[in-house]
């Protein structure tokens, strides 16, 4: 069977075009099969069109997607300019970074990394000397100042603060 399967078509099928045409005529399917085939073909195209139109309507109905990347870029662009590109820095936020916690905090972290690349942001202790604070509360400066071992270096607003470990 394997041999038969892979014998080159060029070896097995040496019909001339005229032979092929006559064979085609001979092999025309009976009317019921042709009818079923036509119905199935038309049903498939109609079904595809219906599903595609449904997808289009769903896409049009969907409220304009909240683009978190644009918001993050806006918030973090100032701190990005202040960071050395080849640095590895720490990342702190006031949301849980556990996936099980709902993913908001982790998404925030991933977006921050996406925005600040090629600077690498790490979240696990021991954090590097320089740490970026990325907080939901835009006025988090005072609260962050109370974080143990961290000193605010510069508040960029919108909840973004550059921190440094206390000596």
């Amino acid at each position, binding site marked *: *069977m*394997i*041999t038969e*399967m*892979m*014998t*080159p*078509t*060029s070896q*097995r*099928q*040496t*019909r001339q*075009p005229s032979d*092929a*045409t006559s*064979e*085609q005529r001979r*092999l025309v*399917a009976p009317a019921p*099969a*042709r009818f*079923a*085939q036509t*119905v*199935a*073909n*038309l*049903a*498939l*195209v*109609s*079904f*595809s*069109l219906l*599903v*595609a*139109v449904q*997808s*289009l309507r769903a*896409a*049009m109905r*969907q409220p*304009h*997607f909240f*683009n978190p*990347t*644009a918001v993050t870029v806006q918030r973090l662009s100032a701190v990005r300019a202040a960071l050395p*590109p*080849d640095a*590895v820095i720490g990342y702190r936020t006031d949301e849980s970074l556990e996936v099980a916690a709902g993913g908001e905090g982790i*998404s925030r972290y*991933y*977006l921050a*990394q*996406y925005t600040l*690349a*090629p600077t*690498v942001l*790490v979240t696990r202790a021991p954090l590097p000397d320089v740490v970026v604070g990325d907080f939901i509360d835009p006025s988090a400066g005072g609260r962050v100042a109370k974080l143990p071992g961290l000193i605010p270096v510069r508040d960029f607003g919108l909840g973004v603060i550059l921190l440094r470990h206390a000596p």
Partner: protein
Amino acid sequence: MMHQIIMSFLTAGVLGWLVVGTLLPVPTRWHPGEFANRSILALGVGIGVSALMYFIWLVLGPHRVPNYPWLETGLALAGGYLVSRTVARSPPNATPAPYAGPKRNVLKLGFALVALVAAATAFIRAIDYPHGFSDAWAIWNLRARFFFRAPNDWRRAFTPLLPWTHPDYPPLLAASVARGWTYAAEETIVVPMLYSLLFAAATVGLLVTALRRAGHPDGGWLAGALLASTPAFLTHSAAQMADLPLGFYLLASIILMTRLGEGYERGAAALLGVTTGLAAWTKNEGVLFALIICAVMWLIRLGRTDGRSRQFRTAAAVTGLAVPMLAAVLGLKMLAPPNDVVSIARLHHAFNQLVDPTRYAAVFRAAGTVIGHARVWLGSVALILTIAGIAGCRRHAANSPSNSWAWGWLVIGLMASSYFFVYVITPYEIAGHVDTSISRLSLHLWPSILYVYFLGMRPRVITPVVGKAG
């Protein structure tokens, strides 16, 4: 900026034509669908090859990256000249026999309408997700930013400090996007957006033209309409993730594999090696695919009686695979930490999971739940395809001289089985893993499933348009 981005796609296309035109002989007369099929294949191959070249350039001379477009454009111009000379040369022994079945303008019109609606949907989705889905900015586009923003420190893209970026993932897509930005000399969202849309459109185009070329234009329009309207496919066309590119390379490889019996032999086998290698360079699942293709090629080799041809074919496929595979293995696997799901370190644990029957039940349960959400769509598609299959099977059984499509089913079956076993040994919670990945994994295989299904239903196999046998 836009003309530079267009230039990046044009050079990729020309380079792809150079590879495809070199490996596949040029026919005397282009069969309907043949030129379009080769062009789409060339574009996909060109994107992959140029991404590979960009990555090698990045590794060898990161400070010279801004000059890369000049190098590639020069190569493309020289390649374009060679391709035009090759295309103009007619081989002596072509025997064209174009499909002479009834023309189904209704199907063509139906496909055109579906394609139009699908394009509008994909465009709206792309505008809604300018940076792609979450995996796009957490993995693929992030890596592209590492390449583009810090070419001198490109290894950072694979840093083990960011394990959630999956540093072991191959960088074809990221390198493509960074290459586009290098052409544009700026980091614009248009590049990843275009890649995403382009791979979706190219997959549909490749499917339609491959079936048309194989003598089943009706099947081409139907399969194309079905693929273009698949909800998950439409959604992912704007995702900017590597799943659709992988689906493209899998489809291209399976198409080439089913064409091996047409007399191209070495050339087609080498091109199969290239597309398989590019699949391996797109996603880790592509590495699995490459292993499966090698195994199936070995099986095919066993079935051949003409010793010289079989040796050449296997050798050529391996050669084609070698370049991108080598880059993938050496460039990444030595840099990156081991994969989180499949790694040697987890071997013992994975074996214990494999012999645990409850895990199999859990995978079935989880897959059943996800599939249940799409039951109306899946049920309708299955019903219509079954009717079409039953109606078409008499003709097929009577006059299909080639069963090479059966190898396609074997590859698809092995891939699907492998995905199943990956779920069984996953270190993550099974239901969650299945829920978040099964639709993407299905998209890897769905275009190939449609191709092989409709190929098996083609009314007759035409004598191929063959040039000088490779």
